[in-house]
């Protein structure tokens, strides 16, 4: 290792030698860096899982534009939209198709426990709005009371979900009605519910008698191939006289929902804070490690200074230390972090995973903050007056 680093730097790897000289202390420093990494990984994992869970239901649909009520910050929030605006929108030459989307939570009471499904009522006749690959069985929804169930829903035993087929449907009671699960799709638990459910708008309305087909929660629009989404959105804003409505591209709606969850909802804000705290604690740890190391070697540095070594040399040493600590602390950090996220994911069924993006971000962050800490710590060297050595 020493030889390798010597080649790499073209000088003695003093930072490396210095760090590894006291093995116990080196181990403690690495443990500190690894701990900081794990902390940030867990917080980032939680925050990302909330993001993934927020964006998940948008993946079930294939649409270009979404029209929602002014207060509809998320799919299952806010008032509804009069269906007449869909007919207006369809008058635009670029709008190919429209569909009302109903959203509500449906509780499946399983005697003792209950599973909360975020349920979508769609028009089975407009099959194009269901994302390809989600399910091949949407035609089955035309049967009254038929639903397609999220087989990854939290609290739903996997073997029970696996047995659901059109030939062997699963009947269950919800909202005082009997529903028939004809097929399943892969959704996954989020923060708003345990899982998802698809049904026809007619089945939805039978579950919620207070709702009417004239006012779905959202209106989804699909454009003709090659149409300009942004331009169409602008046109629709002029065409639709109800100025309180939110007319957005479907992708924008998903991103705005994400931002809303992260900045306006308590869970999102708490997770954001968690990441911030994790990063701050991490910075404090690497700063402690590096400044303690500089303080420990002040005398040696003063000697090097007296010998004619300049500030660039000392900066090189602490940067080298930052790199060594970042790298060797990252390896256990990412392993333990992955393990903890997997464990938490298994328990909560939240989409908690270590992504390459997270790993790279945390690694670079560690090295950058270690380097900055080291650079700040070397400013103390200015106080290491070599004249005091004699």
């Amino acid at each position, binding site marked *: 290792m020493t030889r390798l680093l*010597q*080649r790499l730097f*073209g*000088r*003695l790897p*003093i930072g490396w*030698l*210095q760090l*590894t*000289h006291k093995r116990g202390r080196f181990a403690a420093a690495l443990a500190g860096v690894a701990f900081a990494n794990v902390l940030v990984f867990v917080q980032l994992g939680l925050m990302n899982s909330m993001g993934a869970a927020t964006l998940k239901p948008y993946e079930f649909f294939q649409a270009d534009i979404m029209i929602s009520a002014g207060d509809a910050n998320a799919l299952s929030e806010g008032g509804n939209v009069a269906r007449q605006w869909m007919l207006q929108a369809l008058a635009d030459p670029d709008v190919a198709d429209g569909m009302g989307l109903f959203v509500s939570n449906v509780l499946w009471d399983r005697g003792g426990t209950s599973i909360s499904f975020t349920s979508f009522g769609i028009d089975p006749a407009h099959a194009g709005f269901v994302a390809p690959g989600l399910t091949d069985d949407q035609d089955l929804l035309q049967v009254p009371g038929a639903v397609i169930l999220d087989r990854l829903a939290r609290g739903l035993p996997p073997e029970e979900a696996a047995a659901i087929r059109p030939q062997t449907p699963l009947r269950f009671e919800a909202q005082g009605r009997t529903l028939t699960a004809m097929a399943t799709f892969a959704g996954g638990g989020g923060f708003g519910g345990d899982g998802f459910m698809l049904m026809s708008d007619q089945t939805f309305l039978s579950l919620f008698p207070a709702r009417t087909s004239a006012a779905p929660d959202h209106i989804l629009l699909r454009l003709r191939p090659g149409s300009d989404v942004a331009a169409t959105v602008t046109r629709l804003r002029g065409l639709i006289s109800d100025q309180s409505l939110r007319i957005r591209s479907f992708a924008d709606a998903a991103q705005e929902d994400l931002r809303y969850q992260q900045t306006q909802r308590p869970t999102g804000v708490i997770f954001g804070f968690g990441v911030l705290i994790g990063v701050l604690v991490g910075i404090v740890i690497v700063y402690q490690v590096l400044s303690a190391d500089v303080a420990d*070697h002040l*005398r*040696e540095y003063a*000697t*090097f*200074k*007296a*010998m*004619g*070594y*300049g500030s660039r040399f000392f900066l090189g040493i602490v940067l080298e230390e930052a790199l060594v600590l970042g790298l060797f602390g990252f390896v256990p950090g990412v392993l333990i972090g992955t393990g903890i996220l997997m464990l938490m994911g298994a328990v909560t069924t939240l989409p908690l995973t270590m992504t390459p993006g997270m790993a790279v971000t945390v690694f670079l962050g560690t090295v950058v903050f270690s380097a900055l800490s080291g650079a700040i710590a070397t400013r103390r060297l200015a106080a290491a*007056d*070599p*004249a005091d*050595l*004699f």
Partner: protein
Amino acid sequence: MSDDPAVDVRGLNHWFGTGDARKQAMFDIDLRLPRGSFTVLMGPSGSGKTTLLTLIGCLRSVQEGSARLLNQELHGAGAEELSHLRQRLGFIFQAHNLHESLTAQQNVVMGVQVSGGIPDDVAQQAAAHALGLVGLSDRINYLPANLSGGQKQRVAVARALVGNPALVLADEPTAALDKDSAADVVDLLKRMGAARGTTTLLVTHDNRILDRADRILTLEDGRIVSVSGQC
């Protein structure tokens, strides 16, 4: 050119502190160290020996008067210039000041590489050679913690001399050593200085060393009070 003294100090005054605490530590120092000379600097504690050494060694800024080191004026020189000039000096401190994480050889390599642009294997060889000259060829891979006081100070001598410095400044290098080790280290400095034409200025309280000096300077209360030996 090379007849110019390695060190030429004229009318040097130095103060410590500011305001009411301001106190003069060096008074009108005149001093010339011919190239290749071996000079011992003596004087009671607090007389200013270390102060003079650090001024000549570019570790303190010259405040008043002139100090020329290797034909370069130190008065008014910038930090970069001074740092660069220090690379041509060899320092030996009272405490050995070796880096505890580095082996004897690696410590000496630091003395080579300060000049920059020296290939690693050349530096390693030079370090091993220098350690051989101070009689430590069988200890080159030892960490300082595993060396005796005399051995550590010999490593420090090797580190100071390995870069062929024009001037070696040593401040009580033998203070922490027993009698035999002290004599060893001074003989070493003298012998290697003579072989390489190095100018040496050595501070000591140790009377046993005096007979090895070409010249003896005595400081008292910041003034040079006596010069003995040829000039």
